[in-house]
């Protein structure tokens, strides 16, 4: 029983890792007042660029760095549309998702052709920073990026709630007019938020191709970006609750995998669909009365 629970918690952390990155990335965007539906595409692009550059450079860390830079570029593109041009955020975000997925698939086909077996790399290994605790060995045996994701949660909280930058960022999502009146550039803050957010989203995607899978496949993100959009509402736009949301989804996902293996008497697709259904239900229960940043979806126009 202990072994089962510990391996379940360990798997939960692994599944939650890309979601923590993605949702924290979206948190930056939405707290600044921009809904970035480019998240699914940005994660996909991060997974592809990370994989490609890691293969060419033969360094996983350079691949990760390239993915983060690519994600920041994607965030900048979203900023051009939503901040400078002030166009509809739903449509421009979905457009960026379609563009980045198309671009990744086009490049992948051009570089790697149509191999029967998808190309792979030797992925990040899991490491244990706390060796010597007998029962908990499997729990601490995680990818370095999982520890980074867990460390990011308090860091983002501190940045948002304990620094001037965070105060301004939150203010720009609530009342951009007041921020502007205080002599602070709304545009610069929103650009910054989207750029940081894009980098985090892409890191989440790269975790999948460079860590968990060690390969790039067409279904690598499979709606995880949309799950992040749901988690942020579930989390009431708060970084610590983001962690709980990601762990909930990760937990249900890890549990369904184990139920599948245990051979429960249901088609395995039922279990695969379970985390998505649980997310919708959680949203209906916990999302009620959640107040989105007041200026979300509202482009700022200085007259």
């Amino acid at each position, binding site marked *: 029983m202990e072994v089962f629970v510990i391996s379940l918690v360990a798997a939960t952390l692994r599944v939650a890792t890309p979601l923590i990155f993605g949702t924290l990335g979206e948190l930056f965007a939405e707290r600044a007042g921009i809904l970035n539906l480019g998240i699914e595409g940005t994660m996909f692009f991060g997974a592809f660029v990370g994989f490609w550059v890691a293969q060419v450079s033969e360094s996983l860390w350079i691949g990760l760095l390239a993915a983060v830079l690519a994600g920041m570029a994607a965030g900048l593109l979203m900023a051009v*549309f939503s901040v400078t041009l002030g166009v509809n955020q*739903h449509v421009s975000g979905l457009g960026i998702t*379609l563009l980045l997925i*198309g671009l990744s698939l086009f490049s992948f086909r051009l570089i790697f052709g149509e191999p029967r077996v998808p190309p792979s790399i030797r992925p990040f290994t899991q490491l244990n920073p706390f060796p010597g605790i007998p029962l908990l060995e499997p729990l601490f045996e995680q990818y370095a990026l999982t520890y980074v994701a867990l460390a990011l949660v308090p860091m983002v909280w501190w940045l948002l709630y304990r620094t001037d930058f965070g105060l301004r960022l939150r203010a720009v999502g609530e009342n951009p007019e007041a921020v502007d009146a205080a002599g602070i550039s709304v545009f610069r803050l929103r650009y910054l938020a989207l750029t940081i957010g894009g980098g985090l989203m892409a890191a989440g995607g790269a975790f999948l191709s460079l860590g968990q899978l060690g390969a790039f496949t067409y279904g690598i993100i499979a709606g995880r970006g949309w799950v992040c959009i749901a988690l942020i509402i579930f989390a009431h736009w708060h970084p610590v609750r983001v962690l709980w949301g990601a762990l909930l989804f990760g937990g249900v996902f890890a549990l369904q995998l184990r139920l599948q293996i245990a051979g429960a008497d249901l088609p395995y697709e039922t279990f695969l669909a379970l985390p998505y259904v649980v997310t*919708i239900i959680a949203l209906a229960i916990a*999302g009620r009365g959640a107040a989105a940043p007041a200026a979300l979806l509202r482009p700022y126009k200085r007259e």
Partner: protein
Amino acid sequence: MRFRLERSPAPYWVRPLIPVIALIITFLLTASLIVWADANPFEGYYYFLIAPLANRVSAIEVLVKSTPLLLTGASVAFAFAAGYWNIGAEGQLYAGAIAATWLGLTLDGVSPFIAIPLMLIGGFIAGMLWALPPVWLKIRLNVDEIVTTLLLNSVILFLVSFLLNGPWRDPISGWPQSPEIAAATVFPKLLPRARLHLGFLVAMMVIGLMWYVLSRTRLGLTMRAAGLGPEAARYAGINVKRTLLTAALISGGIAGLAGVSEVAGIHFHLIEAISPGYGYTGIVIATLGALNPIGVAIAGLFIGLIETGSQNVSRALGVPAYLGDVVQATLLLVTLAALALQNFRLRLRAPDAAAELAAEEA
């Protein structure tokens, strides 16, 4: 001297030029990808835009490719017009495809005059049912419909996978695809020696009806009012919740028809890849068509041309067909930018006196 973006309304002759300008910029931007694939961009555009229309067979194929896109475009435009962000046309299409397959496997030996209307009605209802939970959550619990419609797109793919690996797995081939639907449920062809089928007429009729509903009925008026501003619409005595419910369900039904059309007109059985993202392309089409039925028809046919063209480019020049996806997304983004920028003017001007004064004081 410096450049400044100033806000000023566009002159009257700019608006009709926007699609042309957007198209030219899109092709300039995507030319780099064709060059990367070791092909000549001009040759690439020839295969993209001209070659598909150069002979009868491939010109008709453009209409075939447009059929599901016209339907998903109409579906999305119908919901967006009422301010309901249905991003779930993809899932609702699959719901329609499942219903069509079930009816197609059941209605053996029935007259086509009964079977085909039942297919259309069944697919419409299935699309409505898949669109129901998000809109119900939206109007009862105020749950954001974007998230729920997107998540349900993932859920229905698992349902399709379950059906194709379980009860509907083709017993003859053993592949994860359903057996063929009954002959009576197959859509009739519209032309000899071509794949064009009844679905295209259905799509055209849906777009015609959509024009009528949006511009000539009370429902259309309330929908557009709700789309422009729910608060103002409520103040004017419009039942916004009921309007959203109606718009969302009809939108889901139309997307369901796209699924029926692909099963009964093209594939004749259910496969997992029945839609390579037609529901998402519908968002591109609805936006390019400015949520206007005639605009949706033009945009749907044009994207059908790009879909056909991208396969031509792939076959003739070895450029990956995903180029078509990139072109569509780029066209969407460039059009959005052009529409926004038409109200700006780039001015070359000296810093004005007030700014100079402020600079001196600082």
